[in-house]
């Protein structure tokens, strides 16, 4: 009876000390406005993430990552990782992560805590689907949550990517790419109102259709890139609003953006093209003018918070409006 009690008190004390240290450090850090201001080479780096802050004395060497968006960003920046979740249907560029060189630490939704523990990582990254595991994982090692807030996608994305840049000493590259991205977004958003095109975003799965609007997981199209929503009052539920082909016909968008969930998860169910190939959808402006845009499922559905994902997403919408 006594032993666990002892351990509990011990852990409590350690936690309290850690919290105190964190408090002191973050107080130091908060002097500079943007968190990753300090240069990478010397001194501790403190970054803010979705569930708090984390401090690094040195650049983490062993990184376990659960969020595929974060994995994409790390890959973009050439940061090596040691552990990833079980992944399927990766695009060619990322296919190596499915291989044996990378320890498989569970699934996107459910970490294999034993495996993570065995790896003894310096840093664990969660985000989105894996964010709920934050509390449990942070008991094993320093954990950061890179969940991006859909309501303010771009600001939030910038913060998260900059945090990654700061932790791994890649601030310059990150800043350059984010600035280029911002410029591209401003350019696209600047010309859309003139085009006056009304867009509708739908996701298909198992033969069913759901629609997404501003503020949703695909809201980037409306919120940042300025595509006018073709339908009013779409909620921001994670699984969208169940709609029918009739709804698409009635909304009559100029551009129809399609996320094919079944192909995103490598399922051989009904492809989006078959679901949408009917007289009602074919009668819309979008279909008649050949503006049904099939969005790249990996970037949009699986890893929408990766740096190069967003770059390609923005480029795709830019192309669809030209």
């Amino acid at each position, binding site marked *: 009876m006594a032993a666990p009690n002892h351990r509990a008190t011990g852990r409590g004390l350690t936690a309290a000390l850690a919290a105190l240290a964190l408090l002191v450090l973050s107080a130091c850090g908060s002097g500079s406005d943007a968190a990753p201001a300090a240069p990478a080479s010397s001194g501790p780096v403190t970054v803010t993430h979705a569930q708090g802050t984390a401090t690094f004395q040195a650049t983490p060497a062993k990184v376990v990552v659960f969020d595929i968006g974060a994995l994409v960003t790390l890959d973009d920046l050439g940061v090596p990782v040691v552990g990833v979740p079980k992944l399927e249907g990766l695009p060619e560029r990322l296919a190596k992560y499915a291989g044996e060189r990378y320890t498989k630490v569970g*699934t996107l939704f459910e970490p294999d805590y034993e495996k993570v523990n065995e790896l003894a990582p310096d840093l664990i990254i969660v985000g989105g689907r894996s964010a709920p595991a934050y509390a449990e994982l942070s008991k094993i090692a320093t954990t950061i949550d890179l969940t991006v807030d859909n309501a303010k996608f771009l600001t939030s994305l910038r913060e998260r990517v900059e945090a990654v840049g700061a932790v791994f000493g890649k601030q310059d590259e990150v800043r350059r790419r984010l600035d280029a991205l911002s410029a591209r977004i401003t350019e696209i958003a600047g010309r859309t109102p003139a085009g006056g095109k009304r867009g509708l975003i739908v996701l298909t799965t198992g033969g*069913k259709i759901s629609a997404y609007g501003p503020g949703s997981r695909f809201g980037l199209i409306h919120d940042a890139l300025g595509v006018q929503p073709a339908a009013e009052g779409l909620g921001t539920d994670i699984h969208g609003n169940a709609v029918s*082909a009739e*709804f698409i016909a009635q909304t009559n968008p100029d551009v129809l953006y399609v996320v094919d969930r079944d192909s995103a998860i490598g399922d051989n169910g009904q492809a989006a093209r078959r*679901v949408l190939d009917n007289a*009602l959808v074919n009668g819309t402006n979008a279909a008649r003018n050949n503006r049904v845009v099939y969005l790249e499922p990996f970037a949009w559905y699986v890893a929408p918070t990766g740096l190069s994902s967003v770059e390609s997403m923005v480029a795709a919408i830019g192309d669809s409006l030209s």
Partner: protein
Amino acid sequence: MSRSTGRRREVRGRHLALAVLLLVPAALASLFVGAGELSPLDLLRADSGAALLLLESRLPRLLAILLAGTAMSVAGLVMMHITRNRFVSPSTAGTTESAVLGVFVATVFLGAESVMVKMVVALLFALLGTLFFLWVLRKLTFADVVVVPLVGIMLGGVITAVTTFFAYRADLLQSLSAWTNGDFSSVLRGRYELLWLTAAVTVGCYFYANRFTVAGVGRDFAVNLGVHYDRVVNLGLLLVSATTAAVVVTVGNIPFLGLVVPNLVTLVLGDNLRRVLPVTALAGAAFVLACDVVGRVVRHPHEIPVETVAGVVGSVVFLLLVLRVRRVAG
């Protein structure tokens, strides 16, 4: 049967006429409810867009609703007789859950592109699941009227757990719910025609109705009357499984449909299957129609799946029925 069959209330023409009189206007009205704008006036003006909407979406949807509604409630009625328990229906005997497992197996392991393959596999699974339920039923020593469906519901739960486990391993949980949630929103011309099979099955049920009724009185009695009891029961199971499979494959699961509709109808009209079958069929169609229209209207222009609406309405009615039987049984 648990209720007296002595109450021989004739289903006169007027019952049927009343049902038709209620259903036909409701069905016609439902043609003008939906995400797209369509009014009778548009049709009179011979608007080509309106005609398209009607022929591509509204009419197929209405037909799918009527077919699924009639088929599942008749299947429930037949099941009631075969098992001699008024709370046994495809959704309380593991039939639906088995059909869902079949759809999953066909899609994942056979990569079933063809709906027919899915349908056949679902039928086989539905049949096996139901036979297993009947086998369990025979082993039950305490076959209380409410215990029997509870066993069926538990069996269904176990089968669902198996399906869920494999869907989880295959990372297809969300897809599974998309395949199996009862929903008419994806019904368009060319995507529901499999349901016409159920119409044939329903007609078949009508021709065998008297034999099902006799079987429903009990094995000994049926054999005394010269009825091939086992053959009749097996045929009934086959018809019920085929119906369930067709409905699950095309529109998904509509909970409580096969349970509450036959119960309500037989409460009023008695247990002679041949007599109550037409009214049950019409009432089933009306039930699904009402649920679907509610689903289309509540969040217009978005939709609430018929499964959700039917689940809410059906569970309340089911509870009332169970309480009522408990009271009658004392």
